[in-house]
């Protein structure tokens, strides 16, 4: 019997529990459904919950813990001849080989008697474990059905109980999402703390030079490593600024056109088309930036007598701007649409033209939302990676010249973590500190954006 078979049996039992519960409730009511406190289905759900929740929880728990428990038991049972003088790392390699042997896959060492015995023992342990699990889980499931059925009584407030269970389940889902976020932030935070043990936060935040190559051996020269994040931040800001210069006007003006001027037919075509832009994978934008936009800008610049590097902030920023146009336009569209028609009527009723109405009534009323959508777009631009990896270059220049190559926080995180890593060098750990920095910036932007949006939301009510 495998886990999946057990899963199917438990599911079937849960279903059975539902029907048994419902039947029992109807029987208890003597066929008079109205004498039940809740509709019969709720009694069924209640029994199904009693049956399913503990049994599936057990199954999940065992799937999560199985390998640990079995390995601990296996390691304890290994003969000394195999484990003599082993450190934990080589012990885990040995266990791995035993797993492979047990599964009939090629192993990395010669098989001897002891190994074969251990593999057999491992298989035994797993089978016993699974059998025990099956017995316990089925017992719990059947017990759940019995207890649940026993509880059923016409006065039992089954609906309230089921709804509370659903409520809990929803709560657990949202809790899970939050916990995962917290976990991600924590992992960033702990690695960053290790990094700040090697490089002072002050140097990191205010240093003007970024060259993360550290010496691998003591006798290497010239690669002492400098971890000043300012050039990266400057590059990020420059590219985001260029992106917003493209996206803000085009996105906002297209939103105004779509909401205020476009005939319904045009809107029905243009709006989905605009949103297709949002569906293009960013790596495709990256091609476009690196292969089309950047050479074009370089050629134009050269013909004007400017020196433009072939990977320029301008190319990456402009293409990123195109990428976030649908973001800005769709958010602004919602906000402008949310301005009540009565505002427009009031303005028209006073003899204002359409453009006066838009400029003096609609946009001021929608302004907080528009600012909020812009800030969200900025945080999107700051976090964007693929386009800048492909089109902006790797040189950490501290410059405001959009024609030079710059690099961004996200690009550096990628380059630091691509390839073979040693997780005790400042170079690798720097990626986590950069990630934390980026997270803080976008979080702050999002908070400010939400505050602005919320603060003025009810202004025209």
């Amino acid at each position, binding site marked *: 019997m495998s886990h999946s078979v057990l899963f199917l049996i438990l599911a079937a039992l849960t279903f059975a529990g539902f029907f048994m519960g419902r039947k029992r409730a109807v029987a208890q009511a003597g066929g008079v459904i109205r004498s039940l406190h809740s509709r019969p289905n709720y009694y069924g759900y209640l029994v199904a919950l009693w049956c399913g929740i503990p049994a599936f929880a057990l199954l999940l728990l065992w799937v999560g813990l199985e390998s640990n428990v079995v390995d601990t038991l296996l390691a304890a049972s290994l003969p000394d001849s195999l484990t003599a003088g082993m450190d934990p790392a080589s012990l885990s390699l040995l266990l791995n080989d035993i797993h492979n042997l047990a599964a009939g896959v090629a192993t990395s060492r010669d098989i001897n008697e002891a190994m074969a015995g251990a593999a057999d023992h491992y298989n035994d342990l797993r089978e016993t474990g699974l059998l025990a699990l099956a017995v316990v889980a089925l017992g719990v499931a059947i017990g759940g059905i019995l207890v649940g059925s026993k509880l059923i009584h016409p006065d039992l407030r089954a609906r309230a109980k089921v709804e509370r269970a659903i409520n809990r389940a929803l709560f657990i889902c949202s809790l899970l999402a939050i916990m995962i976020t917290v976990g991600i932030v924590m992992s960033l935070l702990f690695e960053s703390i290790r990094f700040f043990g090697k490089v002072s936060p002050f140097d990191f935040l205010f240093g003007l030079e970024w060259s993360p190559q550290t010496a691998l051996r003591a006798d290497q020269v010239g690669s002492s490593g400098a971890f000043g994040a300012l050039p990266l931040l400057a590059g990020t800001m420059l590219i985001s600024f260029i992106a917003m210069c493209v996206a803000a006007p085009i996105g906002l003006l297209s939103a105004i056109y779509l909401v205020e001027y476009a005939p*319904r037919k045009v809107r029905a075509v243009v709006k989905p088309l605009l949103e297709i832009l949002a569906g293009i994978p960013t790596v495709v934008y990256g091609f476009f930036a690196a292969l089309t936009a950047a050479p074009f800008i370089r050629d134009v610049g050269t013909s004007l007598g400017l020196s433009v590097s072939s990977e320029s902030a301008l190319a990456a920023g402009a293409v990123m701007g195109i990428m976030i146009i649908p973001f800005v336009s769709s958010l602004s569209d919602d906000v402008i649409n949310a301005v009540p028609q*009565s505002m427009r*009527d*009031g303005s*028209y*009723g006073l003899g204002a033209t359409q453009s006066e109405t838009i400029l*003096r009534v609609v946009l001021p009323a929608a302004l907080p939302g528009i600012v909020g959508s812009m800030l969200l777009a900025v945080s999107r631009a700051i976090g964007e990676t693929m386009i800048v990896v492909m089109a902006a270059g790797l040189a950490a220049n501290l410059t405001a010249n959009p024609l030079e190559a710059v690099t961004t926080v996200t690009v550096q995180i990628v380059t630091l973590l691509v390839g073979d890593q040693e997780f005790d060098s400042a170079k690798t750990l720097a990626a986590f500190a950069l990630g934390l920095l980026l997270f803080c910036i976008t979080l702050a932007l999002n908070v400010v954006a939400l505050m602005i949006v919320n603060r003025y939301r009810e*202004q025209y009510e």
Partner: protein
Amino acid sequence: MTQMNVKTDDEILSENSMTASSPVTQEAPRPTFVTRGVDVFYGDKQALFGIDLDVQASGVTALIGPSGCGKSTFLRCMNRMNDTIDGCRISGQILLDGEDIYDDQVDVVHLRARVGIVFQKPNPFPKSIYDNVAYGPRIHGITSSKSELDDLVKHSLEKAGLWGEVADRLDEPGTGLSGGQQQRLCIARAIAVQPTVILMDEPCSALDPIATARIEDLMGELREQFTIVIVTHSMQQAARVSQRTAFFHLGELVEVGATADIFSNPVEQRTQDYITGRFG
């Protein structure tokens, strides 16, 4: 709102019937609006059928009728607010002081400056009280200096009976006022453009009885200077504030006449039925 002069319905009714029967108003003044054969369609659905209605200058004309009878549609035709509705078509003639307002030569901006409108639900802009009133004068360039604009704002608010309540907080948002105050702000906003006609689309239906009474008093004062057309669901209100009443039913103008006649002695059976509450 320390002192409030709320008149009972009877008092107002008797006042009105006095004015209605006085010789001055009996002699019909020159009509401001003349409409002939106005049909309105929303898409394929016809909302109004051949409306012929004259609106007398200076005075309150009430449009009454059951929901969906087309009275608001007709009101919105009078300053072309229906232009903003997709699929709305209008045929027939609406003359304002002899000029067809649906003529191609007519600029709808100028028309709406002459014919102001106050809506059912107060809709002050999310701006300061001052800016709300100054909005119209600014877009039409009515005033040439800041002090002139200040005077116009003050004057308009006084006319709308709101000045005393807001004089010391003109820079607070108009949306912070109470519903009745907001509606008077909207009236002040309409007055500030110096129209000749003010259309009111159920201006009191979102207000409590006290605020309603204030607006009704206000209409009594404003009708000296402006031609007022009001759509109302309340027959008592029509009787209190108007001199002439038009009864709409199912998109047709059933009957129009002096308010006192319509309510005491209607010609048409349908009017009689509506007024006595047999349908509606």
